[in-house]
């Protein structure tokens, strides 16, 4: 293996070295709970027939997503994908608007024009994904090019699944970013599968992160169940990019604890894998870390945070449900841009 294998973060001191104080540690915990909670609620709403279309979750990838999202700077930009709810949460996305998105309401980020996690709050520097994978990787590179052209100390982050790395867009993005040493970090959520297709049928053996050298930058592999290790590596990569050090390819070895989407029972997954993964639940792992290292956590903070999150989500679902469905008369609106929008404040 050419890529660097990142070590675990085992102590608060190590987390501190990566810039996290105790409040951060608890905030990360909260983000993890909100992330999972949103998808669990969504799942229930879907089963109740309230969410149109299909439904995907990132269960098992919460730590990977929150870890990177938390490492990004305020003015950084990212293109998260289908397992990256945690990025939206860590960046401050309002949960009620995510439910409104799921439900196809006007207050969803896509205003009912798109569903699922095909959404983003652009004011938080996030870009709404399209289905076609990994079509947003070249977009992130373009954002990084804008930063480079303007000499801004900003970084773009592009996510891709393991499966999506097989597509040409991914290659074109990494190559271009490598040639120009642009401030962009490429993250792979490698959860072992692309739908039913295992890694072995997606790419030749070895780690995807090894491909980074071919693109002129460093590859790093990190355990996606270790939110603090993910955070540390993401932060390193982002700050390196910010300082002109060029791109990094960060492969997060993560879990897909459920099927590809709700309709998929993942019968094709090797026997025992789901059970093994359940034991490696990233949120449980982090909870154990906090229980060990944060005084009072197991005794009261944990319960208090859980309660708070529960209330937040109740309220979010309620508020989302008040949001109206879009008026069919508006179907044509927004295909083209009103020139006035161009100078709106969110468009920097």
């Amino acid at each position: 293996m050419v890529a660097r294998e990142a070590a675990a973060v085992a102590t608060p001191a190590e987390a501190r070295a990566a810039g996290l104080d105790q409040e951060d540690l608890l905030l990360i915990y909260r983000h993890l709970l909100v992330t999972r909670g949103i998808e669990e609620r969504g799942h229930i709403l879907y089963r109740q027939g309230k969410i149109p279309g299909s439904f995907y979750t990132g269960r098992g990838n919460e730590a990977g997503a929150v870890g990177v999202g938390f490492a990004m700077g305020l003015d950084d930009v990212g293109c998260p994908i289908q397992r990256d709810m945690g990025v939206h949460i860590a960046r401050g996305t309002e949960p009620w608007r995510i439910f409104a998105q799921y439900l196809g309401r006007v207050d969803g980020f896509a205003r009912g024009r798109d569903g699922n996690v095909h959404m983003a709050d652009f004011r938080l520097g996030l870009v709404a994904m399209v289905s076609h994978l990994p079509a947003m990787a070249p977009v992130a590179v373009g954002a990084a090019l804008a930063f480079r052209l303007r000499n801004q100390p900003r970084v773009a982050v592009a996510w891709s699944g393991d499966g999506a790395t097989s597509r040409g867009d991914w290659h074109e993005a990494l190559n271009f970013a490598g040639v120009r040493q642009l401030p962009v970090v490429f993250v792979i959520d490698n959860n072992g599968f692309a739908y039913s297709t295992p890694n072995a049928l997606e790419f030749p053996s070895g780690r995807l992160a090894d491909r980074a050298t071919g693109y002129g930058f460093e590859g790093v592999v990190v355990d996606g169940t270790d939110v603090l290790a993910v955070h540390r590596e993401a932060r390193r990569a982002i700050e390196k990019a910010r300082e002109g050090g060029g791109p990094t390819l960060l492969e997060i070895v993560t879990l897909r604890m459920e099927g590809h989407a709700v309709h998929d029972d993942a019968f094709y997954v090797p026997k025992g894998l789901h059970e093994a993964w359940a034991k490696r639940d990233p949120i449980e792992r982090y909870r154990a870390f906090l229980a060990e290292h944060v005084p009072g956590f197991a005794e009261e903070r944990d319960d208090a945070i859980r309660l708070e999150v529960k209330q937040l989500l109740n309220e979010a679902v309620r508020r989302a449900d008040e949001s109206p469905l879009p008026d069919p008369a508006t179907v044509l609106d927004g295909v083209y841009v009103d020139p006035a929008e161009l100078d709106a404040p969110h468009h920097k």
Partner: protein
Amino acid sequence: MAVRTYLQAISDGLREEMRRDERVFVIGEDVGVYGGAFKVTQGFQSEFGPWRVLDSPLAETAIVGACTGASMMGMRPVAEMQFADFVSCAWDHLVTVAAKQHYRAGSPLPFVVRLPSGGGFSGGPFHSQNPESSFAHIPGLKIVCPSTPEDAKGLLVEAIRDPNPVLYFEHKHLYRRIKGEVPEGDWTIPFGEARVHRAGSDLTIVTWGAMVHTADEAAARAAERDGTSVEVLDLRTITPWDRTAVLSSVARTAKLLVLHEDTRTAGFGAEIAATVAEEAFELLDAPILRVAAPDTPVPFSPPLEKAFIPQVDDVLRAIDRLASY
């Protein structure tokens, strides 16, 4: 004849061709162990093995490019796009290499790309499209859009045996909803022959795919309501398309409505209208109307999607306009 769903008819046709001709193989994302996102190839891998039912990487150009190369060497590949929408990732390969190779270099490319297309279930902008019109402009490709189980099987088998690259659009919303009798065994339908789905005399609706059923329902309601007699012509194939059938129906009815699920501007409906406006000008008693989706991406939320996909009422309104002209 057995009653089969539209989806089963597709499966049957493919399975039978694979049994008949060992050059036929299937390639696509999750077509193997999983049996395809819609289960069209369920059980195929156990029957034909992991190479003839080949799970590819997530890479549409690699998939369709493999079809070009393998068919050039005499195989008969059948690719599956997981959703028709993703064929955009193989657009360059299809229009640049596959469509032009025979004209330029004389190599036949007998392959098929299966494209689960169409909306109606909140699939949103990337799981609901009907990209046949884009390809209809590209010389060298053939385009098939069946609307019934019988046609689905007959046209798929024909497509596999056709020596050209064929895009086979199968409408997802018909998969399990539409059932019908399907001839067993060897069964093909020639390309370029429209089918009178419903005979009529007051006006002609030309359509294809899922809209055949929308047109039929509208026609039934019009007949019931005030006796308006609507002919519904199912093109079945877009390239080639049956100009003769359209022109001769219009010669009888003198009124034409073109209906498609894809967006309106520069959709294939424009070609039909333009052809009739050129070749049957003297026969027309009314403007040629088009009913199609508005020029937007396919919206996700049900009220928007309903406003987007042509509905029976939209067709009825157009029927009324024509009937009263």
